[in-house]
């Protein structure tokens, strides 16, 4: 057995499950899908997703991708809504400490593999890191065209007019593009891709990112990828350029600006405070002496 696993000592002897739960045949199948996904950035590779011991919708796609890439020397971080301590992030982290015995961390910079739901960490990612997204609906055209047979043809023909029409109808109706999360992107000038339900605030982080980004959709049985240093462009119009949300106040705890904030309801009299959604970013800043007004 690998010495590092023994040091961690958390692989329960006799559980009967393989390292990182999946059998080697399943891992190979997922690994082959990942390699093709990397070679064809933004294209959704069908894969034979397995039934995992957690429900569809809880991140089975991300968990399968993580399980397929994870090695004994990896350091895993799991976040949900940007936070390491949300219950499902805790649950997935425990799944991997129990089945793979690997080291885990909450520090973005220390992680080699980061599994995420709904956020991209605020701290810039580095070469050598892999960001694994949990994806509910991988098909960016799904809400415009429910049929897989149709959307597959649209991707084959690079026919994305439907998406532009939808975004433009928003502008005509609301004066704005009304998509605030899962905002579609074009990858490397070819495929239009769903970034998973991250707020559009995070879209610019996907562009020219030094880390490898992998996307796993278990229920829909798709894997896709953005290699490092790849052009990722949020769809927009010349007269309505893509814009991200920004908040008119800093984080109440660490004073960070230009980060995504959670709105916390304090009372039933309209009391609100805004704090970093990325808990590690917030804690790191506070450890470095940054303070917000409520700290």
């Amino acid at each position: 057995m690998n010495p590092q696993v023994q040091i961690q000592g958390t692989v329960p002897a006799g559980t009967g499950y393989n390292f990182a739960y999946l059998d080697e045949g399943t891992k190979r199948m997922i690994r082959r899908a990942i390699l093709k996904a990397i070679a064809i950035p933004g294209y959704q590779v069908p894969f034979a997703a397995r039934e995992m011991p957690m429900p569809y919708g809880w991140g089975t796609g991300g968990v399968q991708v993580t399980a397929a890439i994870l090695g004994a020397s990896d350091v895993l971080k799991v976040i949900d809504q940007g936070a390491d301590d949300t219950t499902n992030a805790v649950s997935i982290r425990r799944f991997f400490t129990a089945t793979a015995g690997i080291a885990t961390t909450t520090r973005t910079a220390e992680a080699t593999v980061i599994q995420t739901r709904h956020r991209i960490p605020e701290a810039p990612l580095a070469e050598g890191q892999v960001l694994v997204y949990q994806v509910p609906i991988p098909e960016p055209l799904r809400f415009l065209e429910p049929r897989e047979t149709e959307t597959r043809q649209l991707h084959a023909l690079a026919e994305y007019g439907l998406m532009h029409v939808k975004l433009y109808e928003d502008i005509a109706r609301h004066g704005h593009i009304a998509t605030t999360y899962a905002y579609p992107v074009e990858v490397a000038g070819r495929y239009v891709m769903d970034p998973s339900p991250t707020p559009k605030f995070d879209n610019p982080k996907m562009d020219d990112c030094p880390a490898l980004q992998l996307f796993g959709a278990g229920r829909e049985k798709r894997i896709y990828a953005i290699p490092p240093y790849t052009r990722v462009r949020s769809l927009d119009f010349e007269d309505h350029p893509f814009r991200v949300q920004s908040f008119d106040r800093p984080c109440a705890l660490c004073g960070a600006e230009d980060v995504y904030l959670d709105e916390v309801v304090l009372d039933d009299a309209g009391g609100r405070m805004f704090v970093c959604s990325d808990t590690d970013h917030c804690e790191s800043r506070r450890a470095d002496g940054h303070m917000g007004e409520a700290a």
Partner: protein
Amino acid sequence: MYVAVKGGEAAIDNAHRLLAEVRRGDPAVPDLTVAQIREQMRLLVDRVMTEGSLYDPDLAALALKQARGDVVEAVFLVRAYRTTLPRFGATEALDTGAMTLSRRISATFKDLPGGQVLGPTFDYTHRLVDFALADGAVPEPAAEAEPEADAAACPRVTDLLGQAGLLEPSPPDDGAPVGDLTREPVDYPADRAVRLQGLARGDEGFILALGYSTQRGYGRTHPFVGEIRVGSVQLDFTPEELGFPVSLGTVDMTECQMINQFHGHGAVPPQFTRGYGLVFGQGERKAMAMALVDRSLRAAELGEAVLVPAQDQEFVLAHCDSLQATGFVEHMKLPHYVDFQAELDLVRRLRAEHAARTAEPDEPTLREAAE
């Protein structure tokens, strides 16, 4: 001062302990045994095996116990266990014609070779709550029939009709490998074998409602129950190293063959067509609904227009699996506050703009900055 919610690990541990406690219920009441569930909740066990795609009555019974009787949760446990099992290969095709029957009925003929066998059925019970059961009443023993010595004495109704050319023949075995939707993602259009797998694993309630919809005009196929047979079938497997089939034992199955009207087209003379349902154990409702939906999904193959949900294989196959459906519906209870915040910002901004247009100030909004 505001402190972010912590302690997810402790909360999860405590929730799991509480779950175990409420699962057990009042400790003064004797613990339910797996054998009791297997023997006395047999139809539930059968359904869990069918939708769980695994024939193991003890495991299904245990899953039901662990799941506090929640069928979908029990199916989930069985499926997740099934995924970890090694595969040895595929058995020979079941010969349901050679089934040892406990029940066999046909709605298309008054009598037929082998006769109608009513067997254990709720069909003609009066649904009066039997309060004697609450006191542990022991049932009278049923009369016993001589087991049918020769399976050929009970041919399938569809075989009888097929001989006269009135019913379309079963497609011949072309030797092509049969797809497996547990090992390959479904590629549309899916062939009939894959569709039947999906329907067999599909949620009974969903398949039932779809089958019902075909009877009410959403894709009428004029169905008749050619035959329902319930019984045990021998399972044969040919190991690579032996090269001849060996029996692995028997499985209890319910098979339903629906006979549907069809007017023929082109070179095909008018004849009846088939809809097929097959489930583990005794599951007549599911097998019948499955047969209705199977026939309905053959619309394109038979040159019928695809107009209604039960004819649309993407609609049916993508939504019939209870685990996929419950997962995606129930995942909405996971935190979504990051996305909600994004929507909140947008709605506040739109409201502010609306208010400005109508010259009534609204609450301040977040500005949107250029990237």
